[in-house]
């Protein structure tokens, strides 16, 4: 697939380019800040953009804001935001416009090369990928527990895997459950979070969002 990278640390930028190129992907551009990212995306029309959150000039959430802008400007573009830290607020902002083809991962996940590349594939295919750390943080946050209190521990496990963008099949494999019981858990989650069937396919995303926003 065709990829644009925005990362201000040159070592990592070059490393990513090498990794992706060696796996047969085309790195159309590798830039160092948000504005250059917007320009590169407009020019190269990539399948996925890999975006660092903290970039010049402000070194705060430059990359995240640029990611939101390119998503709005180019529907269908996959965006993987990756960062040294996980901020659940950032995750919520990223998903507020819809969770189609969005990912949010810790940078260190790139060490597990296979997982990282499959995450990119899933994002390009329009799925949602959230770092397990996002899930851990939300689970750890006491005030959010209220919204999720109605869920059983098993349902929470299922939901956190949904948040990572896994399909029912993958969840079944991860939790050693049958496909049918995963389906049952998912239906229970939808009911408990008040998501009616009329919300359609989007319910999966909405559940994750509900989960993120407590």
């Amino acid at each position, binding site marked *: 697939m065709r990829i644009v990278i925005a990362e201000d*640390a040159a*070592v*990592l930028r070059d*490393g990513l380019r090498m*990794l992706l190129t060696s796996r047969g992907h085309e790195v159309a551009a590798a830039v160092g800040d948000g504005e250059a990212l917007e320009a590169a995306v407009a020019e190269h029309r990539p399948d996925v953009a890999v975006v660092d959150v903290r970039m010049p000039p402000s070194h705060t959430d430059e990359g995240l804001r640029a990611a939101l802008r390119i998503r709005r400007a180019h529907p269908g573009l996959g965006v993987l935001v990756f960062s040294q830290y996980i901020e659940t607020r950032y995750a919520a902002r990223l998903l507020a416009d819809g969770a189609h083809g969005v990912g949010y991962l810790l940078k*260190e996940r*790139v*060490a597990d*090369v296979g997982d990282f590349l499959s995450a990119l594939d899933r994002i390009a295919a329009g799925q949602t990928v959230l770092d397990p750390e996002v899930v851990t943080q939300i689970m750890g946050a006491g005030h959010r527990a209220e919204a999720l209190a109605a869920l059983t521990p098993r349902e929470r496990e299922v939901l956190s895997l949904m948040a990572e963008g896994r399909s029912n099949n993958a969840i079944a494999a991860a939790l050693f459950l049958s496909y049918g019981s995963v389906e049952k858990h998912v239906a229970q989650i939808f009911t408990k979070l008040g998501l009616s069937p009329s919300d359609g396919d989007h319910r999966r995303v909405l559940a994750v969002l509900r989960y993120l926003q407590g």
Partner: protein
Amino acid sequence: MESQAGNGPRRATGADPVWARAWRELIYALVTPLMAVIGLVYAVVVALSVVSSAGVVGLPLLALGVPAARGLGAANRRLARALAGVRVADPAPFRSGPGLADRLVAALSDLPGWRAVIHGLVRLPAAVLAFAVAAGLWGGGLALLGCPLWWRSAALPVLSSYGWPGAVPTSAVGAVLLLAAPWGVHLALAPERLLARTLLGPPPGETRTRRLERARAMAVDGAATELRRIERDLHDGTAARLVTLAMRLGMALEELEHADRPERPARARTLVEDAHRDAKETLVELRDLIRGIHPPALGEGLETALTTLAARSPVPVRFDADLPERPAPAIEAIAYFCAAELLANVAKHSGARRAVLGVRASDGLLTLLVRDDGDGGAAMDAGSGLRGLAGRVAPVDGTIDVHSPPGGPTVVTVELPLHV
């Protein structure tokens, strides 16, 4: 005549036209009795509340009256600043705790308030003097100057008996009085200026307190900036390198998992070599970062640490040290960071070909000097590294002096006490 240097709102050149000052001072001298009467009435009211403060009404009245006198003081200060050329700083604003008792105590012990009250009490003679001299010189001068216009009238029979020969010299005397008036009024305002300077500014002691408060604020800011810098170095440097390193090892692992194909182990080897290099570079960066937090070389003393620092500089540095006495550790650390920052500036901005780093301890002072033969033009602008250094040295009552004319050479001198 009293020298005005240092207390007037002088232009940098001191070229204040005499007549402009004369007009301002005339207005001041004419207004000042009015202000003095207001001040006296106010002071009397406050004094009365002191007398009656045995009663229940007196004390709260006093507590209101003293801080409120600051308003009067501020008006007088502004007037003196604008018209009489007295430059006095504003006292610190009134502060008190939230409770009623706190307010009461703070109000009754409000030094600037009391000083404004005293100013009101004692200034009347000075104001009357200024008014009298101004009225006499300007008014009398004008009257005498214009005497040819009115000498025929019956007002002064003596004068009219002399006729024109009397009127002309009288008129000349008037002209002299008018010419002397600007200086006369200026002189007569000396007591007014003195009172304004001593009573309307910040009370003695407050100046140092405020300076230390400012220094503390700068130190806190400096510490926060420093932490941010370290965090950024860790984030953009070390962490990014470690991620890359982990990524390369991850790729190598994948290659080794498919070691059945002949080219795979070779690729894995290349990746591990790269990772190995990454690890070593990360260690170098980390060492630099640690040195930036607290230089380990300082354990050996300032001289050793500075020798290393000078030797590491990309611009050749001659290092002179004269340290018969070892400074306190905190002072050594500040001196070291100043030297590091200044040498970094030399290397980055000055375009210098050589530099001198000197450090000397004598008379309880540690003097650090950095001179370079570069382009000059260094300034203590907001946000500059030099400003940051000022923040570092201020909390220990240190000073920094930058001499950097365009075209160079640049000499920066830092003075610190040997012990805190």
